[in-house]
């Protein structure tokens, strides 16, 4: 079964097509390259950009895995909705919690409390 003959089966079968080999191997190559890139970029101190760059590269890799290895690019839209929707909830969970935690004062140590009490 190739990408061309899935149309004959109608839309019900659209996720049955096999991905061409070059695409799988190419994706693998890209993932390996990006892994090297992220290790390489970690050698340098880029200050505030460190984390965003590392996360950016990881996200590109994740998208490659999702869209090609996991067929999401050729699959039913609802599956994408499910997985990206869940990421939205993860984002909300983490960001709300971070936001709240960011507003607290730092923890106090035993020493601090003694000092405060004796002041």
């Amino acid at each position, binding site marked *: 079964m190739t990408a061309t003959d899935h149309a004959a089966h109608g839309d019900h079968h659209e996720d049955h097509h096999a991905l061409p080999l070059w695409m799988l191997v190419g994706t693998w190559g890209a993932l390996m390259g990006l892994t090297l890139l992220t290790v390489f970029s970690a050698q340098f101190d880029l200050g505030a950009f460190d984390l965003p760059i590392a996360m950016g590269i990881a996200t590109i890799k994740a998208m490659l895995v999702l869209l090609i290895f996991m067929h999401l690019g050729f699959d039913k839209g609802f599956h994408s909705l499910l997985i990206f929707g869940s990421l939205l909830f993860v984002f909300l969970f983490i960001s709300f919690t971070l936001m709240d935690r960011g507003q*607290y*004062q730092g*923890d*106090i140590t035993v020493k601090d409390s003694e000092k*405060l*009490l004796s002041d």
Partner: protein
Amino acid sequence: MKFGALSLSLVLAAGIAGGVTLAAEPTSSEAAAPAPAAPAQDVDALIAQYNSKARAQALEAGESYTYREFSNEERGWIREGAEAKRAAAVDGLIAEYNAGLSGMPARVFTDEEKFWIAMALDPAEVESVYEGHTAIPTGNPNKVLYMEAGELQKPIESDPQYGTPPAAQNTAPLAEELDPALRPSLWVPVAASETAEEVDAMFNFIMYINYFFAALIAVLMVVFCVKYRRRPGVRADQSITHNTPLEIFWSVVPTILVAIMFWGGYKTFLDLRTSPPDAMQIYVKARQWGWDFTYQNGVETAGEFHVPANTPIEMVMTSNDVLHSFHLPAFRQKSDVLPNRYTKVWFDSGEPRTYRVYCSEYCGTGHSNMYSKLVVEPREDYEAWLKKEGNWMVGPDGEYKEPLEIGKLTYVRRGCNACHSIDGKHGTGPTFAGLWGLERRFDAAGDNKRIADEDYIRQSITDPHSQLVYPYGKNMSIYDPMLPEPQIIGMIEYIKSLADVPRDADAW
């Protein structure tokens, strides 16, 4: 048998009937009898007759006594009359008692008078007095009486001699429950500050909206169910499947209402959370299971704290062990108290009154006993109190008290009494009774053991988890900062003094 108000009224009736001797408890039918209007001039005579007879016989025989059978009607009159008398007299008595405690030569009070003084205390405390505790039962040093074998005995070994008598305010009733001028509404307790009134305004606003919608829904439901009840031959009108304008209407109206609620609530919430810059700060340390307060001048108190009237107060709180919550209903204030972090609540103290503080975050066995008392009093009283509190280990002569006395006070003030009994009863922790010189086992087999001596007690205080008596767990909070030296010595002396008190078999 303890049915709260009922038993309280029983006790009241019994107390008046028999003075202090409670051997003959009247049955509930007698005590609860309806009391028609009494011929006023007779009542005094009736009371005299009732009291004198009972007293005389009790004193003579030294046992249960009998007396003329009074009718239920008469009993009612006696009770009412006695109550009226008591109300008039008891305030004076309390003042006199307290005056005696704060240094002036105290006259000797009769047992009956002490009973009446006790009656004016927080009823819950009075009740616990009557529950048969043989010693000081709680962290409050204001237990003036105690019972033994169901009989009222004598005042606690002389508060005056300890030099830390219960302050006058301890005998004042809690504003929330006893002051008839401050009766709460059905829903909320007395609002003690302006912020609390703001909260109440929102509370009432929501309540009226709730009344309206609850009534609307109930009426519609009942009317529809009756009017459109199933009848033969009558079919439901299938054409009504939806009505967009109506549905939009009943979506939008609640939206507007909740938006108003949200905004109003948020504004007041900011008031509740933002303390005025000039607020007086009191540091609070919560522990299992009690509250310790530290004032700016370093004075530490436990269980109870006083603040000057009409002053904004900010409580800066942290916990020694688990989560607690500082809950002041009268001020509509509350905040969790966390270990390793400070949280704050503030309130405007308002008029001199007494309030109850709860712990409202579940914190273990003693959670439901983790009260504190807030006393708002005029500034000069507050300052006098603070001075006295700061010197609780110092006697009237300006010298440190005897270690034993310091130990007894430490036991109460540091909350040891929450877990360690002194009457031999098994508790959350081992009892102190008969502990001195006892062999302590740290495992089931007893391979690991030690005699309870000075070293043992000291180590148990400073590092309790290093030697856990089998089968107790790591329940004791490692108190931080640790007890100061005189108090440790005091505890050693106190435990020593309890060496001969018998302990229960199941108290390890």
